[in-house]
């Protein structure tokens, strides 16, 4: 199967397991181009039977530092439709499309596994939260820093954190905006397993091979118990 080339993503397929790598060195920031390409990659993976599992990871040392705030602000400023008083009327398509992509990712009938090392911040953590499973390497750095820029997570981060870790933790993490460790993430149930960095990808592949045999999303916790504890 011929896989197209992308400028911000590397997509590979090996024995039924797709690898989607965020690829914008050094920290794989999620720019406008990334979100566009991400949507088309999802469409491709969804339509092609050859993909029986999908691993999402970052090229190099990091998962991703999330969206680039100044760029994002500029885009919102230019594209948001406002009324005569400068109040927001219509959310620009490029933002709505992003959350639609995340919802689509979550609705995949094949298992989606985020393999996280290095930084995983802001929108990148939100992306990870919409994967069915999250594995991470030791010394990964997590956070939703949006509040420190007078913003809030806007791609379902608050929603997901509430469901996964509870209201108190969601409030604390989102309002403080500070980073937290792999061990914290495990304690908050944000990741399912922490492994040494070196074995992160082999662990993700081994797990994908097991769970793609008979994946059903409602059995998520059973798979975690069976293969990740």
């Amino acid at each position: 199967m011929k896989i197209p080339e992308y400028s911000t993503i590397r997509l590979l397929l090996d024995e039924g397991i797709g690898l989607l790598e965020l690829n914008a060195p050094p920290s794989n920031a999620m720019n406008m181009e990334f979100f566009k390409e991400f949507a088309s990659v999802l469409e491709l993976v969804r339509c092609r039977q050859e993909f029986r599992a999908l691993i999402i990871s970052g090229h190099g040392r990091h998962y991703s530092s999330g969206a680039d705030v100044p760029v994002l602000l500029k885009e919102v400023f230019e594209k948001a439709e406002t009324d005569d008083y400068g109040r927001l009327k219509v959310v620009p398509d490029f933002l709505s499309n992003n959350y639609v992509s995340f919802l689509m990712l979550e609705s995949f009938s094949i298992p989606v596994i985020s393999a996280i090392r290095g930084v995983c911040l802001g929108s990148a953590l939100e992306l990870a939260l919409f994967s069915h499973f999250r594995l991470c390497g030791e010394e990964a750095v997590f956070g939703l820093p949006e509040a420190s820029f007078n913003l809030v997570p806007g791609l379902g981060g608050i929603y997901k954190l509430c469901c996964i870790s509870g209201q108190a933790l969601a409030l604390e993490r989102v309002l403080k905006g500070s980073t937290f460790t792999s061990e914290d993430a495990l304690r908050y149930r944000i990741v399912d397993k922490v492994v040494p960095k070196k074995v992160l990808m082999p662990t993700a592949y081994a797990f994908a091979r097991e769970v793609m045999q008979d994946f059903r999303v409602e059995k998520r916790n059973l798979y975690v118990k069976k293969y990740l504890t």
Partner: protein
Amino acid sequence: METINKISWEIRNDIGIITLDNPPENYLVQPEFMPLETLKKWTSYDYLKGIMICGAGKHFSGGGKLENLFRMIRDKENINESMDKGKTVLEHLENLDIPVVAAIEGICFGGGLEVALASHIRVCSENALFAFPEINQGIIPGLGGTVRSFGRIGFPKAMKLIMSGDMINAEDAQEMNLVDFIVSKHKVFDFSFNFLQKLTRDRPLTVINAVMKAMKNARSLSIEEAMREETRMFCELALAEAKRRNGSREIQK
């Protein structure tokens, strides 16, 4: 300081403090907790960044007094209406767009536990005790405690708590996610107050309100609707922030 039905209110450093002030057990005088109008008035100051609920003295609250409840039933007072009012009061509390922390020392029973469950964060002392004792009198929690406990700790544990009437200690309560933090005796008030201040002091109200609304949506909307709203709130804040950084909204589009 204002007081109504042995519940008092004061504001300290942009944090509103509701004290259940009927020592020693801080029983709720009204089964419906407190009048909605009063709660609305107290929480309407637009500079408030958080609310704390605590008990006067050694305990949080023993809940509603059963004698009162049975007297109301005997006197054919409209208990149903009273409970409905109480539910509205706790809904109002839960849906406030600033965080509410329950600071729990000692006992937290029945209606007291229902008030705590409607809060967003629960802090308790290591000697705290929790229970829904209603079942011992052949009744069940009446202020939404059944529904909220299912949501917070899951069906099986909530069933056990409600059906057994058994007391559980702080450690077990944390284990089942009924409380979020345990701190040492007598430290609950300071810890909760400082925690709330630390969370909110560097954040503008617009951000705090958006986070609280998003959490409310997570409780009440479908994931699709909740995400649409979350993106919309993000966009509103981003627009404001972009204008702030540009120094003026007259920047060329």
